[in-house]
């Protein structure tokens, strides 16, 4: 499960340029979200959620992706910060 989410979520980092206006990508994230929301297996899982640092870092990426999608940014140069 974790593997599936991660493979999807890290997609932008595997490219040089990414299209954040892509509804398919965000649709997949949303589908995966509702899939796990409904999954009773997950609900009853007494698993742990990892390091406490996940809370704010995941929240940051989540918010960032949503803003990038709302802005409909295309051809975003992922590693541009290195050249600044």
């Amino acid at each position, binding site marked *: 499960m974790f593997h599936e989410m991660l493979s999807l979520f890290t997609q932008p980092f595997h490219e040089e340029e990414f299209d954040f206006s892509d509804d398919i990508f965000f649709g997949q994230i949303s589908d995966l979200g509702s899939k796990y929301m409904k999954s009773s297996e997950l609900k009853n899982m007494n698993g742990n959620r990892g390091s*406490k640092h996940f809370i704010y870092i995941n929240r940051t990426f989540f918010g960032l992706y949503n803003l990038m999608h709302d802005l409909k940014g295309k051809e975003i140069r992922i590693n541009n910060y290195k050249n600044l």
Partner: protein
Amino acid sequence: MKTIDSIPTSKIQRASKLVTTGAKIGVNYLKYYGDKFTKSEEEAKEKLNTNNAEDIYNGLQQLKGSALKVAQMLSMEKSVLPRAYVEKFSLSQFSVPPLSPALVVKTFKRYFGKDPNEIYDKFDTVSTNAASIGQVHRAEKNGKKLAVKIQYPGIADSITSDLSMVKPIAVKMFNIRGKDSDRYFKEVESKLVEETNYVLEVEQSIAIVAACKHIPHLNFPNYYADLSSDRIITMDWMNGLHLSEFSTNNQEVSNKLAQALWDFYMFQIHTLKKVHADPHPGNFLVSPENELIVIDFGCMKTIPMDFYTPYFELAKPECINDPVLFEQKLYELEILRER
């Protein structure tokens, strides 16, 4: 506009507010079961979510402070939450009823020891924006237009008790169990306490602005430490539209803004290892020149190296596709633990 003259500050007052919310949710469930007989299950469920979201929001709105902050955090998990919750909670990101002008002046005096008119040439006692833990007023000094953020009274002291009330709801919503919930709530609590410290916020803002001002198409207000205190922040007034109100058909403008936002985050995460951890639309403006403005640095998260390294190595394809390496990283990130 409707204003409120007092915030429920005692724990009992605040607790009774949450009980009212809880009771209403109960009623909504009764309605749901009633509706279930007459309507399709899907329809009834959607209605239940709408009713619940509204009642939770109305309850939280009068609490302000940390409970509202939790609503904000919930609304960011857009795809995880039912649609009705998201719509209602998104409102919480920047419109709640403001304090009355009389209470504003009183609060300002208590925090600063002076009347706002003694400090600024002009001060508008009617606020322009209300945020989760404070509200914003327009002011002027020496011909400069300023924004003055005033923290709601009693917020800092109420965080711990607010969180202990919200905790059971959140634990249920996210299925967090046992030991984990304590660790997580401690982390959230310490961040919220940090956010009420406006002296720290001014320091962080000034530092981040200095480190990031070279990023193209990205702007920040100046912060005035001498006109700020632990509960008041004075900064430049920035003209612009909130990101959620902004829309354009010009793809070039979209790309420019999105690239600025992306660069800002990647630079913070990878170079500064300290990141603005509150990326909701209320914290960003688009200037008349179509540049991005960042206006709130209350919530900054420092990323420790022992987290940073495995987190980003995990994201690499060669790691995702290598079961052994993948498992090793999960241990480093405490998702898997030795028994």
